[in-house]
């Protein structure tokens, strides 16, 4: 496994276990690697769109899709843990990534009505809802925090 792969796996495994992304200092300590190398790996992983740093603090992770490093309206509960997702897609992406059933608590984007989605037995339980894509694929990463 190359260094970027080790950093990526550590980030995702840490989130899976703790629900929170590690920062560069914590990754460097865990992997016993120089901080500058971890910082460079974070930049490369950002270019590969596997993480998004905090806009004003590149040592911290805002997104490691499907996970969010901050509180969002997309709450994903599983194994007595609470994860936050970046969007509707990522809300189902968390049970897909962790291969575990989950309860997703979200809201209607217009009315604010609570919408609960359930993934059971590896499938979402049918529910009256739709997902709207406001931004075309070619522009998703122009402002990924909005998308």
């Amino acid at each position, binding site marked *: 496994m190359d260094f970027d792969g080790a950093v990526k796996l550590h980030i995702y495994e840490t989130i899976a276990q703790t629900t929170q992304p590690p920062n560069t200092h914590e990754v460097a300590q865990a992997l016993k690697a120089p901080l500058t190398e971890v910082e460079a790996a974070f930049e490369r992983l950002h270019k590969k769109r596997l993480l998004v740093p905090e806009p004003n603090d590149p040592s911290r992770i805002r997104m490691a899709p499907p996970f969010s490093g901050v509180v969002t309206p997309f709450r994903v509960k599983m194994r007595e843990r609470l994860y936050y997702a970046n969007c*509707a897609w990522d809300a189902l992406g968390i049970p897909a990534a962790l291969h575990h059933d989950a309860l997703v608590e979200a809201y209607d984007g217009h009315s604010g009505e609570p919408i609960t989605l359930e993934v059971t037995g590896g499938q979402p339980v049918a529910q009256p809802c739709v997902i709207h894509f406001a931004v075309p694929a070619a522009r998703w990463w122009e402002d990924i925090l909005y998308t």
Partner: protein
Amino acid sequence: MLLFRSEETVTQWCEARGIPVRPIINLSQLWYLAVTWYGNRLTVDSRRPAPDEMVEIFAGIGLEGPFWDPKADQWHSAT
């Protein structure tokens, strides 16, 4: 991308912002995308799908056209 109870609330959300209603997908399609995108995210070899792979994935659930093409030029200058 946001979740809505119905197409009606999508329309209301778009009207409130003065933007056109764009593609709408259902829960089964969303689950397909979630599994395809993230099913192996916690493995060594995981990566984001490349643009051509994305087009193929979207087409697999009936999502075709420039809106779903990450290389489509027309969207870089239009909203």
